[in-house]
């Protein structure tokens, strides 16, 4: 795709120096744009709200949420799956596209990876908080103890513990490895001694030497090779939380692939939701070109269709296996008390994104931005439908119940968005949001591409 003779990945007239200065300039500049301060303040306020509702939760207990019997899992798990899913786009862009030599990823992968980290941070909160006795949550980790007790490794929740923590660790390391040459560049650009030392320590004395580059390339390649199966496994494991159980609407084998597709779908939507304003705010059109936007839109459209296929399959399988419980669950989806959630989900995830078939919509950042937000909402609704609707009416009609989210459900959810944005904006402010050395490399290759020496 990179070699196809369409819109360039870099505006013409860029040099090694210009790209380096442009990107590092964002960070090293004295005058931060006022918009940054405004948004950061809002985000920070939300973060405080999150801390508030967490404290309340810890003081009072799970009961402050709307969960009950039969609906034992509510917003907490919905948000967990949603955030994890969002995270996956980052790993996908940085790892899978890397393996596929999609050079167009270069100017967006750093940003996407950062997003992954922060999304996983948000996601990680929920499994911890949703247990009834968080102060006992360490029992979920295998460690030698005086009770000679172990975790119960057959439980998908245990798989989650391992999958999510591994995922967080690996993404963080992968991200840092990619970051080293750039913080080195920052170190060299920085004038103020504190900044120099800060970046200097992070750069660990990176020298851009051929020796370094050589090992660094291998490491990146291997990590990409590891992160790819990891990202697929993580969301499969998350889907097992449901697929392993016997609850109608959960107990289905299609979940792993369709969760992964959904994850990528929502992930790309989130990348766009954040990337489009960022591009505008920092005038990055030169580096994040229409080509990037267009490609991401296409990926969204494709994964969106996979998700649609998933919904269709659910319906067909439920008709095919003919279990009265499955059928009952399906009807409670389409015309039960929560029917608006289901139909809104269809609208957001399947109907509206179809506008992306038209290139002019894909290139109209405003439209695309709107669509990406709609998809984010839709994917959240999908998890709500799966978790709540399946639980609220299962086998024994006498135990059917209803779930009403409370203020604390909402405040925690919105709070995590604040947490996410806070981290993101700190990242934008202090760390090159676009991989400098990869951009240089891209520039180099595109030049040689012009005089036909290399191709990629």
């Amino acid at each position, binding site marked *: 795709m990179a070699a196809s003779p369409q819109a360039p990945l870099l505006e013409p007239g860029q040099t090694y120096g210009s790209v380096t200065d442009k990107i590092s300039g964002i960070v090293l500049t004295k005058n931060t744009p006022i918009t940054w301060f405004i948004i950061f303040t809002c985000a920070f306020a939300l973060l405080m709200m999150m801390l508030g509702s967490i404290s309340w939760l810890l003081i009072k207990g799970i009961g402050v949420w709307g969960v009950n019997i039969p609906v034992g899992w509510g917003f907490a798990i919905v948000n967990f799956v949603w955030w994890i899913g969002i995270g996956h786009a980052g790993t996908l862009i940085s790892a899978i596209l890397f393996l596929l030599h999609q050079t167009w990823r270069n100017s967006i992968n750093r940003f996407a990876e950062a997003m992954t980290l922060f999304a996983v941070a948000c996601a990680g909160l929920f499994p911890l908080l949703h247990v009834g006795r968080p102060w006992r949550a360490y029992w979920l980790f295998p460690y030698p*103890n*005086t*009770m*000679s*007790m172990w975790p119960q490794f057959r439980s998908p929740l245990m798989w989650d513990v391992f999958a999510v923590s591994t995922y967080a660790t690996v993404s963080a390391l992968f991200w840092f490895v990619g970051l080293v040459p750039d913080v080195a560049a920052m*170190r*060299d650009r920085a004038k103020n*001694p504190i900044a*120099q*030392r800060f970046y*200097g320590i992070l750069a*660990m*004395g990176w020298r851009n030497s051929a020796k370094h580059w050589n090992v660094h390339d291998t490491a990146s390649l291997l990590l990409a090779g590891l992160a790819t199966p990891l990202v697929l496994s993580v969301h499969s494991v998350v889907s097992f939380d449901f697929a392993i159980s016997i609850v109608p609407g959960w107990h289905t084998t299609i979940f792993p692939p369709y969760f992964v597709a959904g994850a990528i779908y929502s992930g790309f939507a989130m990348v766009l939701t954040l990337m489009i304003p960022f591009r505008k705010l920092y005038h990055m059109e030169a580096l994040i070109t229409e080509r990037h936007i267009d490609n991401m839109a296409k990926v969204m459209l494709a994964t969106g269709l996979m998700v649609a296929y998933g919904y269709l399959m659910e319906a067909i399988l439920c008709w095919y296996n003919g279990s009265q419980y499955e059928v009952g669950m399906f009807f409670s989806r389409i015309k039960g008390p929560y029917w608006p959630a289901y139909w809104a989900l269809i609208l957001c995830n399947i109907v509206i994104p179809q506008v992306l078939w038209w290139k002019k919509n894909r290139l109209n950042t405003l439209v695309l931005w709107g669509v990406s937000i709609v998809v984010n909402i839709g994917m959240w609704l999908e998890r709500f439908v799966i978790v709540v609707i399946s639980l609220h009416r299962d086998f024994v009609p006498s135990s059917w119940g209803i779930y009403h989210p409370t203020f604390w459900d909402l405040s925690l959810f919105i709070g995590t968005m604040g947490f996410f944005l806070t981290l993101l904006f700190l990242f934008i402010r202090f760390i090159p949001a676009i991989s400098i050395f990869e951009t240089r490399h891209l520039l180099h290759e595109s030049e040689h591409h012009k005089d036909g020496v290399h191709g990629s």
Partner: protein
Amino acid sequence: MAQIFSRNSNPLSRLLIALVIFTVLGGLGLITAVYRSPYMNRVGVPPEQPVPFSHKHHVQQLGIDCRFCHTSVENSSFAGIPSAKTCMTCHSQMWTNAQVLEPVREAFRTNQPVPWVRVHHLPEFVYFNHSVHIAKGVACTTCHGPVDHMEMLYQHSTLWMSWCLQCHRHPEKFVGAKAAVFQSNWIDSRTQDLNMNIDLAKAELPDGNSLQTPEDIRKALVKHRKIPNAMSMTECYVCHR
């Protein structure tokens, strides 16, 4: 650009990394050590008692049987703590005006309990039953240790779940002669074996005399007393309800 870091920053940074790793591991080790120390589980630390009652004196020197004071140990989950009356059966005759015994006499007069301090404390969600352990031939001293050597009573065993499980997984390592459960010679003088009175055990078993090693005898005892297998003995409901 000039050097940002001095020449010796390199060894320094390496040292720093080593230090971090060491502190993390060391910290974890320390926490574990403290958690498992007598300071936390009070093993071997006799608490201050209102009356300096010496098990050594009463058990070893006077040879009083456990059941004389801990009356219900054979038929209840709770072994029983002696009433002031029990003390006074003897102490109305001897040491009648010893100052240390004043709390007991006071309790006897006023019908109020002597405020003993609990030495062996289990969490409220653990349901331990003395009587069945006695019935299956687990000697007092197996868990309570050399009570007959204790001037002031202290906790001999950790009472951790893992400690309980040792025996519930391998009863054949711990059960002894039923006739010897109340014996205080907690190490058999000849076999140097824990709570194992060979002769009494042999006497108890139908084919006792054919057996030689303590191991065999103990295995035989376990079978003889129909003690369930390890997997049933380590089920949650055995101790938690």
